[in-house]
């Protein structure tokens, strides 16, 4: 496909810059988080993340190369592929940290629950792109999206990957609300969701149940399940206004923090850069979402707008739940911080999401 000059003139450099700044901040923090003082060197994870970022850039540019309306056509095949992969991971997936999430593809391990987020946005944008019924959608109008989303969420939950399952559910719900859901329908869903909670509880592994219990009462087990949150709060709090400086975070360097380079990368960042650094980081995320919201507002059709809004909700919920859990206001459920946390599948998915949003932005004038 040929790239129009008009398209290039609508390339949003701000969007890309914000994305790259966040990803680079992530790499810098991962370097510190995986540095071993006893060995005097960092593990190779930061450089691995650089490769992922480069691959992510390629994916992002590839996402610009086609008209996003093409996604309307491939939404269901894409969904089908992801669903198949999620099935596959149950049988041939590799286990890590007590759950079976990855499929080894030789050069890298794919985590199908990450593209599942994108898949949900695609199928919902496709389904909801037509003008909503008067007074909003009723539940009976939405049986098909439910049928699509339920297997994805359940398959993720049984891995078990509680965090991603929660993200899938909240993104689905958010998009329905944005798409136009009746209030009474929403209340019905909320009630059904609450009813489903005890069933979901059974899918959880004991360690996940413990995390939720200790969230409700952190003193239950200060050296066990509550340990992560306590150490994370100590790391963040001891950063004070200006932080301890790069490599100065003792909580991180001395390994008091768990999962420093993945789910708790924000704690490492907060310890090193303090309150001001945190505010700056959150401002970057907010700016990114603001730019994206403007794209959604200016999109030339409902499909594009829903696509972008869907991606925004992924970002939004991941940032909020991750920051909430490391600061001890939400239970530890294992959600990476978009663009910052170490992880190939996560970074790649986020770069694709950014690419798709930029795609919508570039093509708002084309017909």
């Amino acid at each position, binding site marked *: 496909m040929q790239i129009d000059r008009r398209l290039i003139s609508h390339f949003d450099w701000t969007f890309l810059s914000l994305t790259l700044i966040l990803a680079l901040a992530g790499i810098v923090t991962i370097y510190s988080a995986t540095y071993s003082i006893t060995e005097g060197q960092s593990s190779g994870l930061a450089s691995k993340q650089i490769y992922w970022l480069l691959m992510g850039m390629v994916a992002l540019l590839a996402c610009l190369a086609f008209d996003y309306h093409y996604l309307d056509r491939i939404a269901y095949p894409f969904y089908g592929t992801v669903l198949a992969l999620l099935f596959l991971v149950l049988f041939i997936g590799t286990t890590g940290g007590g759950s079976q999430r990855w499929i080894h593809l030789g050069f890298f391990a794919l985590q199908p629950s990450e593209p599942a987020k994108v898949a949900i946005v695609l199928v919902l944008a496709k389904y909801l792109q037509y003008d909503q019924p008067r007074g909003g959608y009723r539940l009976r109008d939405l049986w098909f999206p439910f049928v699509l989303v339920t297997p994805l969420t359940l398959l993720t939950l049984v891995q078990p990957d509680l965090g991603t399952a929660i993200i899938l559910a909240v993104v689905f719900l958010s998009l329905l609300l*944005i798409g136009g859901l009746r209030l009474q329908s929403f209340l019905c869903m909320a009630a059904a969701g609450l009813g489903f909670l005890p069933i979901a509880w059974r899918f959880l592994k004991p360690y996940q149940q413990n995390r939720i219990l200790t969230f409700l009462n952190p003193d239950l087990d200060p050296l066990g399940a509550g340990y992560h949150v306590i150490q994370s709060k100590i790391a963040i709090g001891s950063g004070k206004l200006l932080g301890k400086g790069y490599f100065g975070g003792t909580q991180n360097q001395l390994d008091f923090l768990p999962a420093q380079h993945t789910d708790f990368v924000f704690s490492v960042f907060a310890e090193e850069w303090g309150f001001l650094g945190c505010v700056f980081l959150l401002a970057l995320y907010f700016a990114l979402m*603001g730019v994206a919201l403007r794209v959604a507002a200016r999109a030339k059709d409902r499909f594009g707008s829903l696509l972008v809004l869907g991606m925004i909700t992924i970002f939004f919920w991941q940032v909020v739940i991750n920051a909430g859990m490391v600061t001890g206001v939400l239970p530890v459920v294992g959600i990476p911080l978009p663009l910052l946390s170490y992880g190939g599948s996560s970074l790649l998915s986020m770069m694709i999401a950014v690419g798709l949003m930029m795609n919508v932005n570039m093509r708002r004038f084309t017909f």
Partner: protein
Amino acid sequence: MLPVTFRTEVDPQFRRRTELLAAIAAAVFLLLIGRLFFLQIVQGDRFTYLSENNRIRLKKIPGTRGMVFDRRGQLLVDSRPSFDLLFVPEDAVDPEATLRSLARFLGQDEGELFSLLDQKKARIPFEEIVVGRDIDWRSVVTVETHQLDLPGVNLRIRPRRSYLLNHMAAHLLGYLGEIGPKQLTSLKQKGYGMGDEIGQFGLERRWEEFLRGRNGGQQVEVNALGQRVRVLHEVEDVPGNSVYLTLDRDLQETAGQAMQGKDGSLVALDVNSGAVLAMVSNPAFDPNSFARGITAEEWRGLMRDRLHPLNNRAVQGTYPPGSTFKIVLAIAALEEGVIQPETPLSCHGSMVFGNRVFRDWKKEGHGSVNLHKGVVQSCDVYFYQLGQRLGIDRIAKYARMLGLGARSGIALDDEKTGLIPDTEWKRKRFGQPWFPGETPSVAIGQGYVNVTPIQMANLIATVANGGTLYRPWFVRKVESLDGTLLQEYGPEKIRSIQLKESTLKYLRNSLSDVVNSGWGTGGRSRSNLVQIGGKTGTAQVAEMRGAYVKSEQLSYLIRDHAWFVAFAPVEKPEIAVAVLVEHGGHGGSAAAPLAKMVIEKYISLKNQPPEQQLTSKQGESHAN
């Protein structure tokens, strides 16, 4: 909020919802920032404190305790660094794997280490398990170098007290124990901390102030596994001071050997100063086992032992003095003039007083007995009559004058007073007058009379030195490690007793004949090296103990206590010895030979060839 403008194609309801989404996002982000503000600004100091606390551990370096030397500068108690190997399973990712590598590094059997782990199943989480005590230097180096492969394994340095005489001087030197919770609250200001060792008994306890070392410490930065990353700050420990005793190591050893396998006590004093030259109490314990870290089982064993091995019998054991008490009677009689020494009294093997028959130890009697013969042959009937003539209060007066019935004042804990009865005591204790029929028993050191071995040693020393009662003492001086004299101790007179020269001369002559005449009761202590004077005693215990004793032990426990008190050389006395052998039988056969061994050792040490004296001198100058 962002200006969101929609193109006309898009439903206005849809647009409103998008604006709402932006507003919600902004609000949630503000909440997050609020949370961060709370954690980082409001509670920042608290969390900073917690993070410091997380990573900085204080590692105590116990100050080495001072050394203890004998009177000639020979080492008695030493402290050397030792390493204990500790393991905290919670710090290890895989405790069994760690133990396996530990076993491989140390060349030990892994099963043994695993069994240690099993034994401690019911422990408190994060409590250290001691997997090796006082491990050798090679193991220390191995563990240090492989620290990274051994998560949860740590070394603890600990000065280990080493008592070179083992159990032989246990009661005088005492032992150490971990500081108790009660002690800790009262001693916290003096710089004691949890887990510190403190003298709990004997010298270790009374000279704690001088002996203790000041703890040093390291501020160590540790990681989440508790492994040392670097040392931030260090305070040097200060070793304790050296204590020099009046005790003689060789003499103590001889005394210990003499008392081997016997229960009782032996005390040797310097006649002219009251300094303790040797002190034995049996059964004993090994203070090294306390230094090693006594197990609860061992401790229970010591506490439950019916023979009370932790008691220092020299000062805490009270016994009827038996015939050794006749020395008191003889002095009292001569001083009070109740009898002319040469006046003979007759002994038919028993004496009737009131409605009671008092027997002599010799059934057929001693015939015509004067004071000299009474002492030499220990004629009971003669002393029954002396007792009658003196009366209980005069006997008590002289006994007390000579240090009986009161604490000797030696710097050892829980000394017993013993008991010297008189009419006032009887009235107070029982509300009854003293019956004259009770006096004969007292006259031969039975009845209510109870004394400690150190009192008897002090008594014979006082007789030997001509009437000066000293407070027994055993610490000569305290020096700091660089040789500065911190404290010096010397003889301390309790009182000078004015005794007639004739009394002393007569008595010493009699006591010499007890040993040397050939017909005295103490012939078994006659020595070719030196002229010894002394008095035997055989104290009955049957009536008092019989009721409490199990039948199978009855035969041992109803046997008499054997006493012997002695001094030497008779001409110019230097050393006084009191020996008590519990249930040893006759003083002349069971106790007298032991006193002889100690006295002969004392004389031979004094007459050491010059070059040997030189080495011991060198020892002293080295110690200085």
